[in-house]
């Protein structure tokens, strides 16, 4: 591990932690909490002193695996995103890597939902799978459209390809679809039915103490990562006047993240029994059309 990569790794951990905390605080503030800046700390304190509990014959191995998998997937997905000047993992297939790590969340939620042996988490876990079947294909097509525009699966190349015009300008459909799927990936806000109040909190309904803390931290980290990925993919990465690259990346990430958190309070939940049809019949053809347009543009 050379020095540059080491610095990138450290800045990744720090920025992920800071942004996740900020997202939690912002959400608490929008959610009507007083002293929102300290709210996530208080919540963490509460969960640290909270007793551990166990439901009736749970499959503890699966529950723990799923709980820890959530922050792990977020972290691994983040490795290909340039936090400072360069990513920790400058992979030639960065986009596919991001996609693969984010899909691991399917496993995480299902494992927790199934493992605790309780009806509401079980329903939540299956809801997330149904959600996955709906958002994943439009999401992949959006990513492929980006790769097509850049002619590469390396995220650095994607950023470089936006030197003149950001992808969001000529791939608006892909960008919007990406944002919808970002909400769905992080099961956030309108796409938060897997953890909805109508199933008593869904997947993490039976988690308390440290388990719940790790799960919640993982979820916020995931939200940060999906927001941060929009920046190199669609918003030109660190490009911008006056400020250095890392600052622009930070500004854009905060803007996208703030938008996602805001949407979480402002839009009602979307049920998959209605969204699936919309995703397959409207979103997929629409993103494919976008892909076609981009494919024709990039032809020599």
């Amino acid at each position: 591990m050379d020095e540059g990569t080491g610095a990138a790794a450290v800045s990744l951990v720090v920025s992920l932690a800071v942004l996740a905390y900020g997202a939690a605080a912002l959400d608490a503030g929008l959610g009507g909490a007083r002293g929102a800046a300290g709210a996530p700390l208080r919540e963490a304190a509460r969960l640290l002193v909270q007793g551990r509990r166990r439901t009736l014959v749970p499959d503890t191995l699966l529950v723990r695996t799923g709980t820890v998998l959530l922050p792990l997937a977020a972290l691994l997905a983040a490795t290909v995103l340039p936090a400072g000047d360069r990513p920790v993992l400058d992979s030639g297939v960065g986009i596919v890597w991001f996609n693969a790590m984010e899909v691991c969340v399917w496993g995480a939620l299902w494992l927790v939902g199934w493992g605790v042996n309780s009806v509401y988490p079980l329903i939540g876990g299956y809801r997330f799978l149904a959600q996955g079947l709906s958002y994943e294909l439009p999401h992949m097509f959006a990513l492929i459209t980006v790769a097509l525009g850049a002619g590469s699966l390396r995220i650095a190349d994607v950023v470089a390809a936006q030197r003149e015009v950001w992808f969001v300008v000529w791939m608006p459909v892909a960008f919007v679809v990406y944002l919808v799927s970002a909400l769905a990936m992080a099961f956030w806000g309108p796409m938060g039915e897997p953890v909805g109040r109508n199933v008593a909190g869904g997947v993490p309904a039976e988690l308390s103490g440290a388990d719940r803390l790790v799960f919640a931290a993982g979820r916020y980290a995931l939200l940060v990562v999906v927001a941060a990925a929009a920046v190199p993919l669609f918003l030109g990465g660190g490009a911008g006047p006056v400020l250095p690259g890392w600052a622009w990346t930070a500004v854009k990430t905060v803007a996208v993240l703030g938008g996602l958190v805001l949407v979480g309070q402002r839009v009602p939940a979307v049920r998959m029994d209605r969204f699936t049809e919309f995703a397959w019949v409207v979103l997929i053809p629409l993103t494919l059309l976008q892909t076609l347009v981009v494919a024709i543009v990039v032809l020599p």
Partner: protein
Amino acid sequence: MGAVLWLVGVLAVGVAGVYAASAVLSPRGVAGSGPFLSGAWPREHAMSRFHVRWYAVTLVFLAFDMEMVFMYPWAVVVAEVGAMAVVEMFAFLGLLLVGVLYAWREGAFRWA
């Protein structure tokens, strides 16, 4: 790859730290209780043959999913290969979309 392993290590230490702190700070022992069922005791285990209404969607999904295996590399070479690549890929996608249309007509995307 080394840096990635380092990150995973950092996460492992962090998670272990959380669990250790919780073990020290939280009340001793693990409370056992039934799952939350609005105040009732469960009559059966929740782990069961869960009837997934959308199983038809999964099959359509698998077909499209495989499309991605080929579409990611395709996206990289379109500019080199030229118009033929676009025509072939979208002909393929067109065929798959016919399948989606059929599944839609059969009501596969509405299960509730």
